[in-house]
């Protein structure tokens, strides 16, 4: 009796070996899709499942596929395995331990999008892992799961693994495509959207690695089965990455709609040393900090509920702060991250993240001016409103929300 849907390697030893994956029904969903379903039927099934993108935006996956510009070929499907958001480490576990389920998902997505070439883009730091994934892909060619005229049909599919070279921004989809083309990974203004003009100016779908890993199970067991997990608007399970001030950090695969309290207290074992949890960031460095009040702790972790509390579920990377953590120090860490990772293309982000870091350093070092907190708020607003892409727009979130919820700690530094 298996329990996991995505982290199935925790139930099934050696699932990262092709023969074991095949023994457990591996690639039957892909084969069934290619031999018995039209691409549109696959899209309809995923739409009916209500699966939403697990990379952060929560956009409905089936809808994303159906936005591809009609009748323009070739098309491309790209797996986003660039996992770089501070606090996020779920795709790495999947790629390491359950790679074939991920690859089967990528193959199903490619079939649904009528693409004959798919890419898997991994961050450069994953070089050793990329070598393993490339070996997995080679196995699939050797056993006839990839290549020309699959299962005697006229559908052909190739997968190419791509390695980045260290740049958080390449998780942004237009920057990721630039990087695949051998350019600097800098985002492009939208429109045009990748579904219209993506990789090499062709219609392109980009899906997160965890999103793709859901697909074989949905195609095999049906959308109604998938909807037995999670909530009506956020169906399915999610891998929650729990880190920071907790006794048991790690990946927890739980139904969407599980509360923060269950994740942090039951699974994470609460804060170390018997300290109290003071707050947390629900979605890595890019989202708003929330204070750990009873009301917030009892909030279900689904896309709508977390948004209602003034933050976002995003990639579900929950970074916990206990009462001993200085929130000015935490804000400074986040400011340093974004200053380093700003791609430099647009001025509000390039200059703004640098100024933000300087302001926070001054405040943290006790050299802040009385007006500095207001300056941080004003500057943060400019960066949010003026930046081209999600990186800049989100860079001040955790800092401004920390200031909002823990203002006394900032004032104490002045």
């Amino acid at each position, binding site marked *: 009796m298996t329990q996991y849907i995505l982290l199935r390697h925790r139930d099934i030893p050696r699932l990262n070996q092709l023969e074991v994956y095949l023994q457990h029904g591996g690639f039957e969903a892909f084969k069934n899709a290619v031999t018995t379903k039209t691409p549109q039927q696959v899209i309809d099934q995923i739409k009916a499942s209500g699966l939403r993108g697990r990379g952060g935006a929560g956009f409905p996956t089936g809808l994303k596929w159906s936005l591809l510009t009609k009748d323009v070929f070739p098309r491309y499907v790209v797996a986003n395995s660039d996992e770089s958001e501070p606090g996020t480490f779920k795709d790495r576990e999947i790629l390491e331990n359950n790679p074939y389920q991920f690859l089967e998902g990528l193959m199903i997505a490619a079939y649904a999008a009528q693409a004959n070439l798919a890419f898997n883009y991994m961050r*450069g730091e994953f070089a050793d892992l990329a070598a393993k994934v490339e070996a997995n892909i080679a196995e699939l060619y050797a056993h006839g799961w990839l290549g020309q005229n699959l299962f005697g049909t006229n559908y052909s599919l190739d997968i190419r693994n791509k*390695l980045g*070279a260290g740049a958080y921004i390449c998780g942004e989809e237009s920057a990721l495509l630039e990087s695949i083309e*051998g350019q600097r990974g800098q985002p492009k203004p939208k429109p045009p959207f990748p579904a219209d003009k993506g990789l090499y100016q062709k219609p392109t779908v980009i899906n997160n690695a965890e999103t793709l890993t859901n697909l074989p199970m949905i195609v095999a067991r049906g959308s109604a089965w998938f909807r037995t997990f999670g909530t009506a608007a956020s169906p399915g399970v999610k891998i929650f990455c729990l880190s920071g001030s907790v006794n*048991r950090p790690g990946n927890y695969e739980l139904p969407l709609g599980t509360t923060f309290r269950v994740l942090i207290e039951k699974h994470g074992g609460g804060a170390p040393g018997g300290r109290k949890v003071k707050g947390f960031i629900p979605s890595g460095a890019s989202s708003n900090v929330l204070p750990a009040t009873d009301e917030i702790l009892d909030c279900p972790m689904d896309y709508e509920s977390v948004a209602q509390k003034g933050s976002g579920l995003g990639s579900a990377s929950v970074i916990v702060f206990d009462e001993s953590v200085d929130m000015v120090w935490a804000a400074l860490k986040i400011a340093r991250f974004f200053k380093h990772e700003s791609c430099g293309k647009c001025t509000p982000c390039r200059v703004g993240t640098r100024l933000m870091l300087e302001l926070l350093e001054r405040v943290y070092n006790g050299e802040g001016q009385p007006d500095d907190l207001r300056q941080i708020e004003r500057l943060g607003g400019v960066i949010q409103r003026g930046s081209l892409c999600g990186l800049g727009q989100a860079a001040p979130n955790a800092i401004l929300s920390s200031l909002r919820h823990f203002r006394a700690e900032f004032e104490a530094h002045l």
Partner: protein
Amino acid sequence: MLTDTYSTEVEAILARHPGDQKRAAAMPLLYLAQKAYGYISLDALIEVGALLGLTPADVASLAGFYSLYHLHPAGRRRVQICTDLPCALRGADKFAEELCANLHIKLGETTDDGEFTVEAVTCLAGCLNAPLFQVQDASGVHYYEGTPDQPLTAAAAIGILDQLRGK
């Protein structure tokens, strides 16, 4: 010249990037050049550019953008410790400090024997196992980490570096 010392690898990379994908070969070629020269030297920029019909400046704009390419020489191995927020909440700053103290350097500096340059880097997607680091050298990029129950200590990290030193 890359085309002399790594001719097979260069050919293979170019073959993997046909037609409109040619420019994309710049990324793996830069990794190869770094392996050959220890960093992305001016010669490397010129050679990679010549292979792809790009100016050295265009290649430099790539090498300068991505943090795993290095335009300046450093130690034979770069020890890159994540000190981002989730790792720092689990002691990464102290870990980095102890490691550096043991090597008699500060963050960003290189050991006297030219073996190690220790750097602070951003999130490595291993926050559960914090603290952790990667080592970048001619053989690639390799992770070193403990587990949530048994995190890596600075002493253990020194042991790992001592073993690497001999190789």
